[in-house]
C-alpha cells in the first residue's frame, strides 16, 4: 500500500503530447478515478504509473520514492486490463498462482492463498478448468483476483467494467467498492463513465486533452466544478450551460444569449460574473434539478419563461425541454404537471448557478 505523487508529468509521443504537466497526489488507501473522454490521456497516465511508459518530463513517486529505475516486474503493481489479459492457455488455478509462482512462494502457501482468493472471488468451483472456458464475468473476477493475490502496493484498473453486461456491471461496481475496502489498497481506476467514477471513487481526477481539469472528491467536483469542461462533463443529466455576452443595461447586468434570449443576472451569480472586469463573454450553468417552476423561492433567483418542447421520462421523473428563443433549458418536471406546448415560467436559483469565462472556461467567482 502506497501513496503516489504525480509531479508535473508530461508525456509526448513524437509531436503529440498525450499528457501535459500533470500533478496529482494520491493518499495511501485512496480510491481514485481517472476520468475523461477517450483519448484524453488517462490511460497513458495510468501506464506511466504502472511503469509501462516512462514520463517524458516529471516524476512519479511512490511513498516519496522514484521507481523509474525499477523494472516492471519488480514494481509490484496490480493491473487489471480492459480485456483482462487472462492466460487462456493455463487453468484458473495457474492464473491465480502465477504471480506467486514466479516469486517462488512455497507451494502450500500458494495453495492456501489461491484457495482463499478463489473463495473470495467465488470462482473456487472452476479452479481446475482452463481459463479460456470462463464467462466474461468470471474472467473479470479472475483478473482482479490474480492481481490482488500478490498484494500489490497499488492497484490499477483499466476500464474494468466496460466489457460487462449491464446487470453484472452494476453488481461489479458495488463489488469493487467492497473489495477496495477489504484490500484497503490504493486503487486507481480509469474510466470514461462519470457515473462509475462518481459512485466508486474517493477522489476523481478529470482529465481533458492531457491536462488535469479538476481533482477532488466526487461531491466537490459535482457541486463546485472549477471550469466549464468539468461542469459539462460531470452530472447526469448534464448541466445547462448557456453562452452569451455580458451587457450592462440600465443598472441590470444581463447575459445576452445567442438567438435573442437574455438572462438578467442578480444575486450571487451576478457577483460571480462581475468579479473579473475583463470578462465579456460568459457561460451560465445550472443543473436541471436546480431549476424549479412556480413561485420564486429566493429573492435573487431569476425568472424566465419558456415553451415546453419535449417531455422525456427518466425513471420516476420527467425531464422538460424548455425553449427560450433559440436556447434550450433542461429541467426536472418535479410536479408532473407540464404539458407539451405550454408556455411556462421557471426559475434559476442564483446561489446554485455557476458562472464561467467563455474564453478560458474558468469558473468565475465561486467558493
Amino acid at each position: 500500500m502506497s501513496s503516489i505523487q504525480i509531479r508535473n508529468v508530461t508525456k509526448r509521443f513524437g509531436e503529440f503530447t498525450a499528457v501535459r504537466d500533470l500533478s496529482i497526489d494520491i493518499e495511501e488507501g485512496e480510491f481514485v478515478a481517472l476520468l475523461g473522454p477517450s483519448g484524453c490521456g488517462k490511460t497513458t497516465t495510468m501506464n506511466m504509473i504502472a511503469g509501462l511508459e516512462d514520463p517524458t518530463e516529471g516524476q512519479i513517486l511512490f511513498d516519496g520514492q522514484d521507481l523509474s529505475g525499477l523494472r516492471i516486474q519488480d514494481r509490484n503493481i496490480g493491473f487489471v486490463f480492459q480485456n483482462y489479459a487472462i492466460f487462456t492457455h493455463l487453468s484458473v488455478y495457474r492464473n491465480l498462482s502465477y504471480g506467486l509462482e514466479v516469486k517462488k512462494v512455497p507451494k502450500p502457501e500458494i495453495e492456501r492463498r489461491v484457495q482463499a482468493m478463489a473463495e473470495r472471488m467465488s470462482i473456487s468451483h472452476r479452479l481446475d478448468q482452463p481459463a479460456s472456458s470462463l464467462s466474461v464475468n468470471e474472467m473479470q473476477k479472475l483478473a482482479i483476483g490474480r492481481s490482488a493475490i500478490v498484494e500489490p502496493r497499488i492497484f490499477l484498473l483499466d476500464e474494468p467494467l466496460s466489457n460487462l453486461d449491464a446487470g453484472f456491471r452494476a453488481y461489479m461496481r458495488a463489488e469493487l467498492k467492497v473489495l477496495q475496502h477489504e484490500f484497503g489498497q490504493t486503487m486507481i481506476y480509469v474510466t470514461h463513465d462519470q457515473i462509475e467514477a462518481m459512485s466508486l471513487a474517493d477522489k476523481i481526477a478529470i482529465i481533458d486533452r492531457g491536462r488535469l481539469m479538476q481533482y477532488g472528491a466526487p461531491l466537490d467536483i459535482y457541486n463546485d466544478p472549477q471550469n466549464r469542461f468539468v461542469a459539462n462533463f460531470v452530472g447526469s443529466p448534464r448541466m445547462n450551460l448557456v453562452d452569451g455576452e455580458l451587457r450592462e443595461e440600465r443598472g441590470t447586468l444581463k447575459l445576452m444569449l445567442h438567438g435573442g434570449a437574455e438572462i438578467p443576472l442578480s444575486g450571487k451569480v451576478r457577483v460571480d460574473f462581475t468579479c473579473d472586469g475583463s470578462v465579456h463573454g460568459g457561460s451560465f450553468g445550472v443543473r436541471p434539478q436546480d431549476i424549479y417552476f412556480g413561485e420564486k423561492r429566493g429573492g435573487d433567483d431569476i425568472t424566465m419563461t419558456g415553451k415546453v418542447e419535449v417531455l422525456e421520462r427518466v425513471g420516476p421523473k420527467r425531464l422538460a425541454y424548455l425553449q427560450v428563443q433559440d436556447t434550450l433549458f433542461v429541467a426536472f418536471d418535479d410536479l408532473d404537471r407540464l404539458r407539451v406546448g405550454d408556455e411556462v415560467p421557471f426559475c434559476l436559483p442564483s446561489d446554485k448557478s455557476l458562472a464561467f469565462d467563455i474564453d478560458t472556461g474558468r469558473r468565475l467567482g465561486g467558493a
Partner: protein
Amino acid sequence: MKPSPGALALKYLFILLACAVVLYPLLWMVTMAFKPYPEWTTVAGLTWLPQDPTWQNFEFIFRGHAEGLVVSLDRTITGPLIASLVTSICGTALAVVSGTLASYAVVRFGLAQSLPLSVLQLRLFPPLAVMIPVMVMWAFIGAVDTWWGLSLIYGIVTLPFAFWLMKTFFEEVPVEIEDAARVSGCSYWRVFYRITLPIVKPGLATCALFVFILNWSDYLLALMLTQKEWVTLPVYMATLTSAMGGQMYGMKAALGVIAAIPPVVFGLMIQKHLVRGLTFGALKQ
C-alpha cells in the same frame, strides 16, 4: 520502461552479428562476380572488393567468350535464362490456377474435404523417391527436355503451396459479400469471377510470386528432366567448368548473382505473407 542501454547495445550487437553472418557469403559471391581470374582465390591475399573490377565474367556468360580469355562457351546464359523464366512462369500459372479453383471449391462448397491433406502429402516425399517413374512417364508423353514437361512437374510440385495459400485467402473473404451477390441473382461463377476473385487479387499476386520463387529455385527436377534446350539456370550454373581452368568461379558467381536476384526481390515484396505460404497457411496471421 525502456530497456537499459546495456541491454539495447547487446541486442544490436547480436543483430548486427547475425546480419554479418548472413551477408558474409552473399558479399563474397557478389564481389567474386566482378573479380578477374587472379583474384578468384585468396592465394594472392584476401580481398573483399575486387582490386581490378571487371564485367568480364558477365560478358563471358552472355556472349560465350570474353576479351582476354582463351576458353569459350558453346551455350550462353540466354537459353537457360529463357528456360528458367518460361518454365517457372508456366509452372506457376498451372499451380496457381488449379490450386485457386480447387481451394475455392473446398472452402465454399465443402467438396473433397480430404483434398487439403492429400495435396499436402505431395510435399512430404523426396522427389528422388519417385523420380524413376516420373522420368518414364515424361519420356512416354514426350515431355523430357520440353518447356511444358518441366512446367507440368513444376505445377504439380508447387500445387500444395498454391492450394493452401489460396485457401487461407478465401477463408478470409466474408461470405456475406458473396451472399449479397447471390441474393441479387448472380450465378456461382459470376460471384466467383466478379466478386471473390477481385477481393483476393492481392492474395493471388502474393501466391503467384511465392510459387514463382519456388519454381525458380528448383535444381533437381530440371537436372533430371532437361537435356539441352530447356536446361535452367541453376543446372547451367553447376555445369560451368572449363578444360584448362577447372571451375570457373567468377562466371559461376556471376550466374549465381543473376539467379539469386528475382527470388530475393520477389521474396522481399511478399515478406508479410511468406510465413503463410511456408507453413501451408497452418499459421493464421
